[in-house]
């Protein structure tokens, strides 16, 4: 049904035009007896039907037009309504005058002219009403509930029905229909209450609207006066136009215009307040956009301060900041004495850091004593859940100067500011940590470059290593130095603590290792004794290690010619050893104090021992740091020396690389994916039965 009606809508305008032409012909026939005698007199019902069809056509056409309201441009909408129909009214008046003039010249043609112009004016009036009603519809629907649309639809349906009344009831209005018509008028009045759009006008627009509404009412009056006059004219040939429908639509169009006019008129005095609120909202939007652009905290605070002062129109204001590096804060037309006085008073009341609104300062004893020229005060703290950034103070000379809206607006301002400040700080922190990360990466690269990349390789032994720092940079170290074709020095150690500090000491230790190796002169019969090496290293470190730091190390010199090695242990983990002859796996139990603990050289030397051991081909030596044996699993158990020893018992026959891999695998299996708690370093040496290459 509705779909069918939709299809008929394009036909509405042609229908209106055709029925208007039919109406014109009928009226002319009725007005001219001669023509009527020739063509016949059309009956009343034909005229009434033509009138009804014309009105329905025009209204349906207007109804189907797209909404003329663009956004909130109410003034152009009304202006449009006035310009065209206004012109129509002028035409109506002009036609009326022309008709009078012409009637004076050709009296016998008087009735014909009158009826012709009546028909034209009726057409103009109906069109004007249709335009007005559907313009009002746009306004009624502005921000309206779906219910209102429903009500409007009923209003339209009933109006359409009222078109039929005249056809049914004849000239006299039936008393039965009166209540229905009154109800319709009531519905029109009810719909006229939808004037929300007026709230969206500013002061200037409201003035314009007032005049536009007046003009529209004027146009309507022109038409109404014309038709009222004509109603009693004996020369009018046809039956009177659609009473009920026209009266109702004119009533609605007029009433809505009057209501709109009155509402706008009474809104004029408060327009200023509305505009101020609007201004506040706008300045809030501006502020939030600006604040986000603020590059520094100072800029953000300054934006807040200026906006707050402007928006609430404060007479004096200042902003105290808690952070020292942001300078003395901001102030506006306020002297230090007043600031101090108010702050001290608030602190005395113990309300220095909470939201506070006092609209009647002269009536508070404390403030009266200060003899301030101000009547109202707002105190607004800037704080997040964790941090207090500062406090904003605003003063006005008048009493009752601030309202709740000011307060909530300031809350929004300060929240926005705090958010921006926190964002800025987070950004700075992340930049800082990014820098630190970058530096750590460099440190890690430097340390990486300190680790020997090329292993000493020879046919009489195999060395394999594994190193895994717990952080970017570690405290474990190891190094090799091929002293001659048949002698090699090896050091492994661990610096107390982790991370960057430890990494510095690692670099120092590496330097000490290579410097002291210069003292090894076996050709002169003065090979460097490992205990001597440790004593000297301890001496050197005493000058550059802080009191609570120490270093553990094991130092070995392996000699192919001697088929043995000398070593010393300074507090470092015991060396694990597999003897291929006795087939025993054991730890070297030697004594030795860590480096940097005793700073007295002579006392230290007593606590470090040399140890000599003869190796056999097939022997395996495992050196490691405590990160290996102290690795933990989820049950907080330690990997331990025993597990390591038992593992070597099973794997000693493998190549050095495979022994290393089996230890790493076992360690991973033990800790089951837990990240290393401490740096882990592992060296595996396997002695071979072969001549040195060189």
């Amino acid at each position: 049904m509705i779909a069918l009606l939709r299809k008929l809508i394009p036909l509405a305008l042609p229908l209106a035009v055709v029925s208007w032409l039919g109406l014109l012909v009928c009226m002319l026939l009725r007005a001219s007896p001669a023509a009527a005698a020739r063509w016949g007199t059309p009956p009343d019902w034909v005229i009434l039907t033509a009138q009804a069809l014309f009105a329905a056509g025009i209204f349906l056409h207007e109804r189907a037009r797209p909404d003329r309201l663009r956004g909130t441009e109410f003034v152009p909408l009304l202006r449009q309504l006035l310009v065209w129909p206004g012109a129509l009214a002028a035409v109506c008046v002009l036609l009326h005058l022309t008709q009078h003039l012409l009637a004076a010249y050709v009296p016998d043609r008087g009735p014909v002219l009158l009826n012709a112009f009546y028909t034209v004016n009726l057409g103009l009036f109906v069109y004007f009403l249709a335009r007005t009603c559907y313009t009002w519809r746009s306004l009624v629907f502005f921000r309206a509930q779906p219910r209102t649309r429903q009500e409007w639809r009923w209003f339209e349906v009933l109006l359409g029905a009222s078109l039929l009344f005249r056809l049914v009831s004849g000239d006299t209005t039936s008393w039965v229909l009166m209540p229905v018509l009154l109800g319709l008028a009531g519905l029109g009045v009810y719909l006229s209450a939808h004037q929300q759009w007026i709230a969206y006008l500013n002061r200037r627009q409201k003035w314009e609207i007032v005049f536009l509404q007046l003009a529209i009412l004027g146009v309507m009056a022109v038409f109404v006066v014309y038709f009222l006059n004509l109603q009693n004219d004996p020369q009018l040939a046809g039956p009177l136009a659609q009473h009920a429908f026209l009266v109702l639509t004119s009533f609605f169009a007029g009433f809505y215009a009057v209501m709109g006019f009155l509402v706008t008129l009474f809104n004029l005095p408060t327009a200023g307040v509305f505009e101020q609120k609007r201004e506040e909202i706008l300045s809030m939007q501006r502020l939030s956009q600006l604040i986000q652009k603020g590059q520094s905290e100072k800029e953000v605070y300054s934006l807040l301060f200026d906006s707050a002062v402007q928006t609430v129109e404060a007479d004096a204001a200042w902003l105290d900041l808690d952070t020292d590096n942001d300078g003395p804060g901001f102030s506006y037309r306020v002297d230090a004495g007043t600031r101090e006085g108010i702050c001290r008073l608030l602190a005395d009341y113990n309300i220095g850091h909470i939201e506070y609104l006092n609209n009647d300062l002269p009536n508070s004893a404390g403030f009266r004593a200060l003899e301030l020229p101000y009547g109202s005060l707002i105190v607004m703290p800037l704080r997040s859940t964790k941090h207090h950034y500062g406090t904003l103070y605003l003063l006005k000379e008048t009493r009752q100067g601030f309202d709740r809206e000011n307060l909530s607006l300031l809350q929004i301002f300060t929240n926005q500011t705090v958010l921006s400040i926190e964002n800025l700080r987070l950004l700075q922190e992340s930049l800082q940590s990014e820098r630190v990360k970058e530096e750590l990466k460099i440190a890690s690269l430097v340390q990486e470059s300190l680790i020997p990349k090329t292993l000493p390789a020879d046919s009489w032994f195999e060395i394999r290593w594994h190193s895994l720092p717990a952080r970017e940079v570690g405290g474990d170290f190891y190094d090799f130095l091929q002293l001659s074709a048949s002698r090699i020095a090896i050091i492994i150690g661990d610096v107390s603590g982790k991370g960057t500090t430890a990494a510095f000491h690692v670099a120092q230790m590496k330097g000490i290792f290579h410097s002291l190796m210069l003292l090894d002169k076996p050709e002169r019969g003065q090979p460097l004794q490992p205990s001597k090496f440790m004593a000297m290293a301890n001496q050197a470190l005493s000058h550059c290690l802080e009191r609570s730091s120490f270093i553990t190390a094991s130092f070995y010199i392996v000699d192919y010619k001697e088929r043995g090695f000398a070593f010393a242990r300074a507090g470092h983990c015991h060396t694990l050893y597999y003897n291929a002859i006795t087939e025993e796996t054991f730890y070297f139990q030697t004594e030795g104090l860590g480096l940097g603990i005793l700073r007295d050289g002579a006392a230290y030397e007593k606590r470090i021992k040399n140890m000599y051991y003869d190796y056999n081909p097939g022997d395996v030596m495992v050196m490691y740091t405590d990160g290996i044996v102290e690795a933990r699993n989820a049950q907080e158990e330690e990997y331990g020396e025993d597990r390591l020893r038992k593992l070597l018992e099973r794997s000693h026959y493998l190549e050095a690389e495979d022994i290393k891999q089996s230890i790493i695998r076992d360690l991973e299996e033990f800790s089951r994916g837990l990240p290393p708690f401490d740096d882990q370093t592992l060296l595996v040496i396997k002695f071979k039965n072969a001549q040195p290459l060189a």
Partner: protein
Amino acid sequence: MKIAHHAINDTLTLALDGELDASSSVSLDTELTKPDVLDYRKVMIDCQRLNYISSAGLGVFISHLQRFQDAGVKLVFFNMQEKVHNVFEILGLDSLMTIVPTEQEATAV
């Protein structure tokens, strides 16, 4: 890490409870740095509930060792768990510091 104080006459006993790692060793260092610690003749460390000691924890004792010796204050450890004792031993601290099995022995030192 919890540190309990107990002072009788000229002896201060600190009972360590938990793990002495990098962060908790700071509070131990604060305890030992207090000037009045040097007024005692002896400082006894009860290690019964000490489950773990990191190199930073060892560093704290090492850094105060010389200071205590200079002031004539004895530093005695007792009730030490095996694995913690092992750490002291590997580092060679057992020859440098007084570590005894029981409280009676510690009191007798």
